[in-house]
């Protein structure tokens, strides 16, 4: 543990929140999804998902595109390159933390 600096072990709190981690992980493995798909896969409610989505969008981790499908609003979400890098970094930080723990 002593060999790692605090910067190395700085965990991104925005991603570390369980609901947002689910969202980030889902977006990490696909190209893009819509609101309904993400809601079903993460088990979040409309309101919860909408609120977390706004936070991730503010941090520029995700890109939200709004379009119309059969005259109905349709929200598409995609991980930005900044978000992808942040998620990779988050995973590697956690790996480092767990690797360094005594058995």
């Amino acid at each position: 543990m002593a060999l790692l600096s605090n910067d190395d072990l700085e965990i991104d709190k925005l991603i570390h929140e369980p609901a947002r981690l689910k969202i980030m992980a889902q977006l990490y493995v696909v190209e893009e999804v819509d609101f309904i798909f993400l809601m079903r896969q993460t088990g979040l409610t409309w309101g919860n998902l909408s609120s977390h989505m706004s936070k991730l969008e503010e941090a520029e981790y995700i890109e939200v595109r709004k379009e119309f499908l059969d005259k109905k609003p349709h929200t598409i979400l995609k991980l930005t390159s900044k978000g992808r890098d942040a998620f990779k970094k988050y995973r590697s930080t956690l790996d480092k933390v767990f690797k360094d723990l005594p058995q």
Partner: protein
Amino acid sequence: MTMNEQDLVEIERKSYRELMQDGSTEALLGLILLVFPGLIAESGFVPIFVVFYIFFMPYLIEVYRKRYVYPRIGYVKVKEEEPPKLTLGIAMVVLLIFAAVIVLLYTLWIGLIDRFFIWRWLPTVFGFIMWGPSLYLKEKTGQNRYYLLGTLMMISGVAISLTISIPAELAMIYYMVSWGSFFLVLGLVRFLLFIRMYPVIEEPEDGIVE
């Protein structure tokens, strides 16, 4: 909560499975297999089929999904497949296929085998080829049932080839029509179950917070 590599693979596979459960993959495969004997009988249709398959099929699939799939389970675009890098292994496989085709044409030319021999063993060859999609789907979805499907297609191909009572020219047609009908019915059944299981979800206006 951590998120290791296996977790991410499982999330990716689940997304793929979600997209597969409407039965369209099976129905489409069934239709292709049913069209195949026609293409073998009348090779003039091959270019029409290829053009239709390359240019119109993706469009039609998307129209279908927008109408029946996305309103029920949501929209997901899975990651695009990266083209395989030309490794020594791939080069060897391509070389092996070329060599096999050349040997086959040569044996046909010198009269060691005739076209009936080829017709007879075509279901076996196709059965082995179908292992490819089976392995691909197993990898993508994580479902072992695709091994079973690949094995059954292979065994039935060998069985039809070995059944002397089936005329050689009809062996491939029997094989394709049987499997094509099976997949088409399976696809339609899965589609009906999908429609029943997942009603259309109305997406409320954005920004609603509980």
